[in-house]
């Protein structure tokens, strides 16, 4: 597609529910990243995929967070047993070549998750 697409745009979950957030990167982009943005702060790294391989998941805040990219294209970020502190905007980004050095990353519109 022309840009990075995320769905849903907004999600309200009751505490304890599981949620799944989808990211459709720019066609042909090798790298895919997930970031979490709390209100009033800059985005913070969660995890990185190179094609289907998850090469870095050091930013995932707990084992309730899980991400996959099984065919090296669309990615899903899953949060199990959501808690109020999970409320944030979740941003997906993609770039043409592996990693972040020497290449521009493009971001989707984000999914705003509110846990009530």
């Amino acid at each position: 597609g022309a840009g990075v697409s995320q769905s849903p745009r907004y999600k309200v979950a009751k505490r304890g529910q599981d949620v799944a957030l989808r990211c459709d990167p720019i066609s042909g982009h090798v790298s895919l990243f997930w970031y979490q943005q709390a209100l009033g702060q800059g985005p913070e790294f969660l995890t990185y995929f190179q094609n289907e391989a998850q090469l870095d998941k050091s930013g995932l805040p707990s084992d309730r967070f899980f991400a996959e990219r099984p065919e090296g294209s669309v990615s899903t970020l899953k949060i199990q047993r959501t808690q109020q502190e999970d409320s944030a905007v979740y941003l997906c980004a993609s770039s043409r070549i592996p990693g972040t050095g020497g290449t521009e990353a493009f971001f989707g519109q984000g999914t705003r998750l509110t846990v009530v």
Partner: protein
Amino acid sequence: GIQVEQSPPDLILQEGANSTLRCNFSDSVNNLQWFHQNPWGQLINLFYIPSGTKQNGRLSATTVATERYSLLYISSSQTTDSGVYFCAVASKETSGSRLTFGEGTQLTVNP
């Protein structure tokens, strides 16, 4: 990890004024990007500028990699320029997988 500091944190301008936003970083970088986050939360790419100078209309940016800072210039500001401006970098030593963002500059342009 690499540290990114943006200044000022808040900036209020009258339409037509010029402004300079600054980004300092603590390590050598092989990626530096400036973004504008609009009121709907979308991060809009402004510049990919790990070094050198670029211009795009009323906006320009300069990165002095050896001194570890970047500047974003906005000339003849318009109300539509309002929003948060983020600088994000990838460390040359440890980049691999992530951009590190600053806290942003909140720009308000009044008519």
